[in-house]
């Protein structure tokens, strides 16, 4: 078997096809953006795409927001390198959608307008709660954005086959990574600033179709090599990995350290903490929540979550095949040589499978197809994050806090566009400096913050009669500060071999993932905050509940 790195570097055919497909995709998405910008007239068009997407369209966009490059390439890579534990990750990601379906999606659609802050502040004092909602939206989105963009830089360099010490179009690997970050950053800003939610959603729909088809094609071809016998594939993967317990949990998370029962216990508690963050984080991610506003009513929101669950579930089952396929057919050595974190396992598998079916040319084409699907995955997820941040800045912070609710729709859209430029610029600069950060860590952190800062407050707002402003603020800030603070004092930041800051050790919190502690802290803060304040507004609660449950007075779709 040819070594992927040499192959990609030597085989310019693949690189040419990849670049052609990348360019086609950029051209198509920019075309969509231009079209969408002409359709975007009102604030509702910009923030919520006119609320006129069909459940299937929104379901595809939901899948697209969720199946980021980190989860496509990351999970396939994790399965390839660590076997079963990668699958564990995808289960948390999927089950999380039940929280969104049962407790959040429809009620949010009925009671809010453009942002998560709409619902959090519904029966509270507007300015402090919207400020808090805006801050937590920005923090979660920026961490998630950094994860995607740092990954994007490295991936584009790898997908174009630029190795350390080589140059391409005059760029070495380091420059290519920065160029990748800047290109992705510029594109996402353009999609959002010009296309608004309409443009972003259509980019996501196109991406979902490309990604699902690419993954399905590769899954079928991989299984075909094994006569559609998944058991044989798994056996081969386990054997090729050379690791005991490859098909069981424990190689990556909750690792048992021989002779160190305390560390073993911390590792296992960290696994539980991660599981909690994954299952509770999704329904607190602002870019996921605002997707529920893009459909005409709550029934459509429900249907679109169902489409999303179907697509995402199918997709994760396919990554299981891709991950085991890469372990069996590409092999750990070749995967680790290309990228120690395993992020290129899926593209490498595409090339290997293509070669064994139709020779070098087929390998090159299949590699290019999967690389392009990954590129599309990066572009659409970051666009979703930028629009969530800029909508929140314009609607929650500028309109409600600074202008005290007096800004017109046109004014809000103008501010949102400027905010998109600002968020885009900040994200590009931060991502260039954050290149050394671990992508999986950033994603897990974003989920942990969303699970701590947003979800408890959101649920208490919808269901607890006594809940009030001080409780909401305590819940949001308590969750935000405890999640970020605990990570800061964890072995992720200092005091371990892989820590961000080497040479010092100020860590005292043993778990890399804070959710197990920070979610209860947030809940406790929210309850204590509420009970310590006399404020209570049962009338607003009645109004919110009648509206949320029945849909009376819910925002309507705009007609064109």
């Amino acid at each position, binding site marked *: 078997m040819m070594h992927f790195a040499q192959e990609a570097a030597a085989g310019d055919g693949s690189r040419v096809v990849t670049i052609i497909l990348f360019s086609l995709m950029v051209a198509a998405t920019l075309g969509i953006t231009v079209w969408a910008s002409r359709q975007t007239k009102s604030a509702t068009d910009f923030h919520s795409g006119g609320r006129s997407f069909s459940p299937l369209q929104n379901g595809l966009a939901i899948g697209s927001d969720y199946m980021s490059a980190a989860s496509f390439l990351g999970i396939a890579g994790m399965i390839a390198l660590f076997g079963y534990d990668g699958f564990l990750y995808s289960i948390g990601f999927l089950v999380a959608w039940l929280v969104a379906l049962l407790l959040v999606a429809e009620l949010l659609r009925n009671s809010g307008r453009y942002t998560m802050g709409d619902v959090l502040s519904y029966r509270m004092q507007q300015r402090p709660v919207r400020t808090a909602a805006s801050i937590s939206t920005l923090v979660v989105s920026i961490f998630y954005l950094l994860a995607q963009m740092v990954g994007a830089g490295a991936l584009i360099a790898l997908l174009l086959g630029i190795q350390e010490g080589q140059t391409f179009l005059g760029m070495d690997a380091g420059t290519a990574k920065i160029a990748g970050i800047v290109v992705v950053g510029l594109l996402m800003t353009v999609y959002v600033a010009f296309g608004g939610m309409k443009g972003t959603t259509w980019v996501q729909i196109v991406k979902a179709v490309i990604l699902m088809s690419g993954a399905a094609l590769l899954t079928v071809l991989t299984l075909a090599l094994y006569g559609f016998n998944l058991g044989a594939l*798994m056996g081969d993967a386990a054997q090729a990995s050379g690791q005991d317990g490859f098909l*069981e949990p424990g190689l990556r998370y909750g690792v048992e350290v021989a002779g160190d029962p305390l560390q073993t216990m911390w590792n296992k508690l960290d696994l539980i903490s991660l599981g909690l963050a994954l299952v509770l984080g999704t329904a607190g991610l602002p870019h996921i929540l605002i997707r529920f506003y893009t459909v005409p009513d709550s029934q459509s929101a429900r249907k679109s979550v169902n489409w999303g669950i179907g697509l995402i579930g199918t997709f994760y089952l396919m990554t299981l095949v891709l991950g085991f396929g890469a372990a069996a057919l590409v092999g750990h050595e070749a995967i680790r040589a290309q990228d120690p974190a395993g992020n290129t396992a899926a593209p490498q598998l595409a090339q290997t499978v293509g070669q064994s079916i139709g020779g070098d040319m087929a390998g090159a084409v299949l590699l290019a197809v999967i690389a392009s699907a990954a590129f599309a995955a990066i572009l659409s997820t970051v666009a979703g994050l930028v629009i969530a941040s800029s909508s929140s800045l314009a609607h929650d912070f500028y309109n409600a806090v600074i202008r005290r609710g007096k800004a017109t729709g046109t004014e809000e859209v103008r501010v949102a566009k400027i905010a998109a430029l600002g968020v885009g610029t900040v994200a590009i600069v931060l991502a260039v400096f954050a290149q050394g950060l671990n992508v999986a860590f950033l994603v897990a952190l974003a989920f942990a913050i969303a699970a701590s800062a947003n979800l408890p407050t959101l649920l208490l707002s919808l269901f607890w009669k006594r809940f009030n402003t001080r409780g909401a603020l305590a819940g949001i800030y308590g969750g935000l500060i405890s999640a970020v603070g605990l990570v800061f004092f964890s072995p992720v930041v200092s005091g371990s071999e892989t820590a961000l800051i080497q040479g010092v050790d100020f860590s005292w919190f043993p778990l890399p993932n804070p959710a197990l502690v920070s979610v209860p802290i947030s809940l406790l803060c929210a309850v204590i905050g509420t009970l310590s304040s*006399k404020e209570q507004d049962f009338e607003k609660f009645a109004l919110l509940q009648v509206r949320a449950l029945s849909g009376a007075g819910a925002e309507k779709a705009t007609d064109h």
Partner: protein
Amino acid sequence: MTIERSSKDASPPPNGDGAALSAEAAIAMHSDPRFLQLKQRLYRFIFPMSIAFLAWYLLYVLMSAFGRDVMGTVLFGNVNVALVFGVLQFASTFGIAICYTLYARRHLDPAAAEVREALREKEEGSA
């Protein structure tokens, strides 16, 4: 710094299109038997089901952390308990989504429509 009502806050909530739902009507509706029925039907499904699927998921995570012997038990070929448990999480997620959708269509949507209709009639009656 206790505030009895949030009326001290000068800015009106930017939510709502105003026309469709008046505060008085909504407050009256909140204790109306039709709304209480809708609320009871919703709560009766979503809370027990949420507790159930979270417990089921937590059991899976706990088993992955502490029940490795059981999880590693081979059932047949290369299929072990861990894989089956994982696939069952997928199946239960799909299943609960389907159950909820059927339940909502049958019990929640008509009740919600009834509440909306009652509010509309009241609105027209008072206009």
